[in-house]
């Protein structure tokens, strides 16, 4: 059901029921089309075992890693990088615009932001956490196995196992959490708990506690895009659950592949340089 078919209907109906009736019918069709755009009826190709096929290399194309809330363009946090390191403006990915922080938590986020060069785990090449890994700007690959779906990220080689069958509670806290998954129609729903309180959501210091509970919904919306919707729950930091959403884009280059970004060595001098042996005086 699309505009072109609507035009076709108009032509066919011109002499039968008159242009006006056809126009009304078309109006209904177009209205229906716009509703469907919000809840796409796209049916993804299937894997051989009949599941929606999400295999592929995906990447977000937005400024969420700078700040998941709406933000204007801003200078680079590192003077030497000038315009190359400056922050592009973004409309944000948080539904409703603002994260519903508890008052004290908003203060902590602001402190995080003020001290971001010292505190942001990304700068130290630490595992990015969830959902930051998804929109950090690097590609990630979904490998859909029989019992496990792997999410393999380029940044720091971060990896998540989504348990589709052999599900358990998180055995201990971790950076990337403990993920159990299920299919709801076209949607892969990933429920993740068992986080530590060390990862951030972005470079703006948006954060969570170890009580974080993340539910991600990956829904195919076309052959080369997914809708990615995340519900964040953390009663220690937020006054209510909240959502972020964004499309994810498939890397369609024939030779696309996840390459190595083994960033520890890029952060070592920053982390341990002050402990370097000084030349004898």
């Amino acid at each position, binding site marked *: 059901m699309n505009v072109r078919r609507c035009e076709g209907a108009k032509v066919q109906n011109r002499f039968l029921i008159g242009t006006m009736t056809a126009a009304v019918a078309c109006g209904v069709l177009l209205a229906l089309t716009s509703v469907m755009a919000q809840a796409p009826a796209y049916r993804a190709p299937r894997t*051989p075992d009949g599941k929606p096929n999400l*295999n592929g290399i995906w990447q977000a194309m937005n400024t969420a890693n700078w700040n998941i809330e709406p933000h204007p363009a801003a200078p680079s946090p590192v003077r030497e990088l000038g315009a190359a390191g400056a922050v592009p403006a973004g409309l944000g990915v948080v539904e409703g615009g603002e994260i519903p922080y508890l008052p004290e938590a908003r203060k902590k986020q602001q402190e995080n932001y003020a001290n971001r060069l010292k505190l942001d*785990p990304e700068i130290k090449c*630490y595992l990015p956490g969830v959902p930051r890994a998804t929109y950090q700007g690097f590609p990630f690959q979904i490998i859909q196995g*029989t019992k*496990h779906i*792997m999410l393999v990220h380029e940044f720091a080689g971060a990896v998540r196992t989504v348990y589709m069958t052999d599900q*358990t509670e998180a055995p*201990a806290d971790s950076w990337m959490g403990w993920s159990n998954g299920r299919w709801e129609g076209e949607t892969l729903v990933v429920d993740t708990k068992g986080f530590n309180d060390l990862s951030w959501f972005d470079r703006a210091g948006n954060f969570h506690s170890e009580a974080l509970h993340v539910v991600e919904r990956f829904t195919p919306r076309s052959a080369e895009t997914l809708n990615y919707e995340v519900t964040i729950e953390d009663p220690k930091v937020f006054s209510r659950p909240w959502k972020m959403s964004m499309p994810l884009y498939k890397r369609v280059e024939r030779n696309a592949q996840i390459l190595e970004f083994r960033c520890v060595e890029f952060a070592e001098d920053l982390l341990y340089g002050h*402990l370097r042996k000084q030349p004898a005086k």
Partner: protein
Amino acid sequence: MRLRSRSFLRGTTVALALTLGATISLAGQAQAPAKPATAKAAPASAAAGKAYKAPRTPDGQPDLQGFWTNSTYVPLERPNGVTKEIYTPDEAEAAIKAAALREAEQTEPGTTADVHYDFSQFGLDRSQSTFAKNLRTSLIVDPPDGKIPPVTAEGQKRAQERAAARKAAGGQYDAVENMPIGSRCIIMGGAGPPLQNAGYNANYQIVQGAGYVMILTEMIHDVRIIPVDGRPQPPSQVRQWVGLSRGRWEGETLVVETTNFNGKNAFRGASENLKVTERFTRTADDTISYRFTVEDPATWARPWTAEAPMAKTDGPIFEFACHESNYGIANILAGARADEKKAAEQKKGSN
């Protein structure tokens, strides 16, 4: 739930987050065979394994998925004085016991080095976990003498140059970049290719998706995504610590060829032009035959091949956040600086 922390301090340099480097075995989580109907009469040996046909993935590939370990007491090279290729089961048992004892007593009682936890007490020695049983006296099967072939003159020269470069960079504790890459949580032995027995946490998870086989190495959560869709190798300018792998199926066997190494984690002194060919064949429900051949004419006079079976093990594999909790590096460097300061003060005092 049983928590097995199997990490240890290698020399004085590795002080990792031990709880994070844990393999967690959850009672009742043993992997059921993917297709129980075909999971009968598993042959015990690789030789008999020719009759075995692996279960299939939904898209028809031999199914290698699950959790595996290549932990073993069999050394890469045949020990001096051993002439036979295959031990009897009794001889193998004795060799394992002797090796387990050596592993448990790595430090001398009463010395500073001995002041850390007991290996056997925390399940850090291999004998307490699953290990791949193997009657071979060496993992190397070719050359037949079980030894790495002689290093070429070029290979010897490179080894000398690398040693000289390390010496020129200063002491091991002068700066982080002089420290071993494993201690720095960049990459560890066993990550491969080739997959080597890491000493501890020698666990792997294999997941197959359309056109890809993924191998997760527990140590430092190293993931290798191997395309099996026939795509060409990337250009030689793109080099990685773990090289770049391309795979294909040859009947029951996954064949993986890897080149494009960056040479910074040289396997046994190899050059960056090393080529590793691995062959994974599921020979029983609980066994993958794993063979690798290394070719590097710049280092060895001839290619050589080793065989190191992988045994099914209980999952899951827990996150190995090594760098994130690497207090060891800062403590070791700070200790070295404190020692220097103390020495300088003593020198001043004695003047």
